[in-house]
């Protein structure tokens, strides 16, 4: 409903812009014909005409951009509702249960534990949402030169710690040719992206974590970070959708795994912000998946 209305607004502003430009053109042609002999008048007319056209075009571009931004904001709000309301509904349900009934201590303790877990989930969602908001506000000059291998190693260490995993479960392969690969990026964002990818690889490997990370040069001027797991995999028709904001793969395996549906969206947003891209591949369900993020290589000597 809202989206249709926004599309309408965009179409209207573009149509209006085109009509005004058309009108101005007709007016300008009439002006030239009318003042054919007088060079000064024609030149004046041309200058005024170009100014007006430039103004209209600029106005239209800004309008369309603003409407698009509004549209994104709207879908974001809609989608975040579910992830915020579910833990609140749960906490509230348990509080009301405690209020309504006399319960043995063991039962109360269990309910407190559940409420704590829900408040953690709520906090994680809130933090991810805030992060998603921050990314849009980044400026190119926040970017610094970062060597990828140490950053990935660090993220692997954090992930191992977070999920209480043995060191061999996530492995970073040596870079072919032993080159140092640098990118120009906002360090915190890049870390968020890599951590999210690793987190996913671990989360979606319910039967043992075997994650492999590879760094390589891709099409001469890019670096590719591929993270491969042996988990639940991705069905072919889901490969594109998983990057959509709040999208979660439907199905038996995926549903047991908690998530906001923001993770991969965030990673894609970060990759695009840095002039890169992201893609997913999987041999099929239960055969693992590979998420590859590519970023433009940076030259450490250039700075």
């Amino acid at each position: 409903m809202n989206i249709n209305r926004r599309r309408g607004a965009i179409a209207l502003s573009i149509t209006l812009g085109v009509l005004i430009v058309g009108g101005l053109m007709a007016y300008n042609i009439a002006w030239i014909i009318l003042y054919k002999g007088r060079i000064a008048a024609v030149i004046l007319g041309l200058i005024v005409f170009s100014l007006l056209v430039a103004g209209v075009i600029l106005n239209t571009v800004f309008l369309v951009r603003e409407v698009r931004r509004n549209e994104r904001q709207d879908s974001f709000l809609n989608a975040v509702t579910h992830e915020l309301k579910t833990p609140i509904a749960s906490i509230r349900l348990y509080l009301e249960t405690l209020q309504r009934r006399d319960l043995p201590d063991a039962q109360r303790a269990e309910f407190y534990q559940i409420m704590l877990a829900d408040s953690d989930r709520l906090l994680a969602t809130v933090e991810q949402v805030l992060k998603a908001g921050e990314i849009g506000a980044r400026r190119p000059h926040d970017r610094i030169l970062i060597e990828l291998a140490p950053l990935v190693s660090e993220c692997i260490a954090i992930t191992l710690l977070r999920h209480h995993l043995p060191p061999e479960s996530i492995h970073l392969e040596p870079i072919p040719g032993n080159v140092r690969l640098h990118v120009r990026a906002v360090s915190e964002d890049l870390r968020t992206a890599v951590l999210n990818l690793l987190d996913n690889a671990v989360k979606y490997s319910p039967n043992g974590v075997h994650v492999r990370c590879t760094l390589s040069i891709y099409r001469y001027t890019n670096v590719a970070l591929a993270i491969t797991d042996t988990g639940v995999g991705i069905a072919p028709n889901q490969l594109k959708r998983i990057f959509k904001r709040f999208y979660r793969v439907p199905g038996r395996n995926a549903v047991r795994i908690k998530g906001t549906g923001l993770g991969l969206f965030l990673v894609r947003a970060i990759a695009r912000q840095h002039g890169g891209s992201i893609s997913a591949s999987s041999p099929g369900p239960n055969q693992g998946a590979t998420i590859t993020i590519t970023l433009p290589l940076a030259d450490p000597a250039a700075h």
Partner: protein
Amino acid sequence: MSDSPLIALIEDEEHLAQGLLFNLAAEGYRTHHESDGDAALAYLLAPPEPIAAIVLDCMLPGADGFTIARTLRDAQCFTPILMLTARARPQDILDGLEAGADDYLPKPFNLNILLVRIKSLLRRTAWQSTQSSLSSRTLSDPDHVEGESKGEGSASAFPTSPADIYAFNNRTIRFDALELIAPHRTTRLTVMEADLLRYFTDRAGQIVSRKQILEDVWRVREDTDTRAIDNFIVRLRRYIEDDPANPTHLTTVRGIGYRFLPNPQ
């Protein structure tokens, strides 16, 4: 009647489900829980024993809540459904009711209200289930109900108060039994359909607006799109009109709403 009513809970959020099951059990209900939409549908379409009410979440893995409600109603299963919706936009609520839900609660819900609503759904269907068991029909035997062409016999067998019965145009609505008895077939009504019919019959001859219906029957405050009722009306017309395409009893008043006429000239 010796057993306590069985409530089916379809909810994929583990914590919510656990808390709800605990409370339903504490209230003395028996419960059955499904967390996957497809599995839930399989269970609900062929339950091993009659289900008294369904508490249904909208967003589920597999078939979603709307699909489940619609499929059950299409399969002539009229077990009352209370829908839980996370997105409390009026459109979602209307979608749920349109799909065949009898009541809804937005998340986060109030526990006391939820329990009261379940109780009221069960009360609405309590009379009907006793009658079902007496006439050796079960809730899980939809074909039997649909195939029963002579409904008059069973209708007169039980004494009821006049307010629970409404007769017009060879048809009898039994609000207590949630049944609509027509010359050639008996239709089971959902609680929501019965409520809407009751709303119309109570206001026979009056014009009622869509907005009024939304607020009074569905308790939805919605200013923009009130067309959602129209699908419901189409369904009711299939039950009560001789020619649903050219309605004479439940007529559209252009630009305003609907009017129910028990005896059109």
